[in-house]
């Protein structure tokens, strides 16, 4: 069943310079959809619109078939809870004055009827889930490395047990091994929680490894969409081809044949 759908979404910040033009995209329940595109193609704008943080100029965002913008009261709260975002830069998406525990507890405060003890227990559990120690709850963001900060952000996004997590280039700042480690962790959580993910990246190798389907964005639209396996050979649109042709070779020249 379709969890979140963008239908004919258009957005421009300056007249005559549309960022998105009539974009259609759908994420199914439990599905991992990779969204690829070159820098500046409007991926981050799409993420914000998909979460209802910005209103599209035209078109609509449908959450379980209902317009996101039209939801009120308890339904709006449920949608807010179900759709979570992990930002590109962990360092600036955590309040530097709040401890890691306080940041992770924030969605729990808003969505879960837990007392202080219950929240602390849940925070400890979430920290362990993302591979950090429960004691880390008392530390400030300045005391963590980049990869650890991103884990805190993921723990915060997982806290309200969302149905969809949007990862906006959320692992791009880490080295490739770090990215793979973090995604392995997410893939494991996915198996146990069934959370869907809109995985925005420009790293095709990661999308191919972790996603079910891949969509390629160019000029504010989706130009190519298909199953992650084999998308490279099937892609026809020039922008998609350029992206796939630019993938780095796995082995030095001359060794590839073996």
């Amino acid at each position, binding site marked *: 069943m379709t969890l979140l759908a963008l239908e004919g979404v258009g957005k421009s910040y300056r007249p005559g310079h549309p960022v998105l033009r009539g974009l259609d995209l759908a994420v199914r329940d439990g599905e991992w959809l990779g969204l690829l595109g070159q820098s500046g193609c409007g991926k981050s704008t799409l993420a914000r619109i998909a*979460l209802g*943080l910005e209103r599209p100029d035209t078109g609509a965002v449908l959450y379980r078939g209902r317009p996101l913008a039209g939801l009120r009261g308890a339904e709006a*709260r449920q949608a*807010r*809870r179900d*759709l*979570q*975002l992990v*930002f590109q*830069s962990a360092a*600036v*998406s*955590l*309040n*530097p*004055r*709040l401890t890691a525990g306080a940041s992770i507890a*924030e*969605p729990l*405060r*808003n*969505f879960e009827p837990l007392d202080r003890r219950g929240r602390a227990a849940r925070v400890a559990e979430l920290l362990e889930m993302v591979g950090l120690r429960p004691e880390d709850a008392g530390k*400030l*963001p*300045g*005391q*963590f*490395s980049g990869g*650890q900060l991103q884990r805190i*952000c993921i723990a*915060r*996004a997982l*806290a*309200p047990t969302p149905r969809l997590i949007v990862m906006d280039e959320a692992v791009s700042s880490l080295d490739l091994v770090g990215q793979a480690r973090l995604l392995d962790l997410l893939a494991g959580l996915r198996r146990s929680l069934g959370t869907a993910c809109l995985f925005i990246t420009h790293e095709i190798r990661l999308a191919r490894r972790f996603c079910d389907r891949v969509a390629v964005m160019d000029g504010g639209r989706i130009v190519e969409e298909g199953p992650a396996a084999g998308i490279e050979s099937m892609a026809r649109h020039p922008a998609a081809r350029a992206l796939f042709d630019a993938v780095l070779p796995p082995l030095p020249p001359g060794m590839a044949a073996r």
Partner: protein
Amino acid sequence: MTLLQAGMALRPPPGLRLASVSALLLAGLMLFGPWLAPYDPTEVALDLKLMGPSLAHPLGTDHLGRDVLSRLMAGAQVSLGAVAAILALVLTLGVGIGSLAGMAGGRTDAAIMRVCDAFLTIPTFILALFFVGVLGTGPANVVTAVVLSHWAWYARMARALVAGLKRQDYVLAARVAGTGRLMTVVRHILPAVLAQMAILASLDIGHMMLHVSGLSFLGLGVTPPDPEWGVMINDARAVLWTQPVLVLWPGLMIMLTVMTFNRLGDGLRDALDPALQAGGKAP
């Protein structure tokens, strides 16, 4: 909570500890000065005028024979109390109005900022004089006048801070986490704004003291015979060449206050800066 953490994480350097002690002493003087003073600060004794320091009068007497120490102690209530009141009001008004403008944006923001600009175009002292002229003399009116002439500076600063902070990813992240608008302001925006504003305010205290004292000096604030440091300097002017020490005492008190709060402002800035607070980074 963050303040508490900052306080605990802080092992203050000696200068800061000294400033904290001095601030506590000044606060004590402000609250209890009139009752601690050994003599009635307004009691005139012409036969004792302009006496040098003695056991009975450790800081001597002024041109009307009043005990200088008593006047200094009693005067603290007005001098420091006025500044404390001004600070509280200016911060509330400035941060409140500025945050409103910063959060609202658009026309509300523009309207509030134009009002601020109108206040900012006139030098603060002239503006304060104008308000005292309209409101009449007296300590309460001096406070009102200084607040009215200063709030716009704070509002502008708060507005700029809020406008910058509300675009931060972590504020957006709070929205994603389901935190309402008001709570977002309280939890994520105001602490950062207040930290900055407290630094500004602590550096501004000296300026405000001089305003209050200046207005008293002109005879618009506290009126004789009530003691106030600015009034004391004014009174001592007549005997400046024969008894310069009479200007020195209230002058020293004003200087001590200004230095104390400047140092506290520096300390506060370090304590509230999350980058400095975190200490060493994890490897």
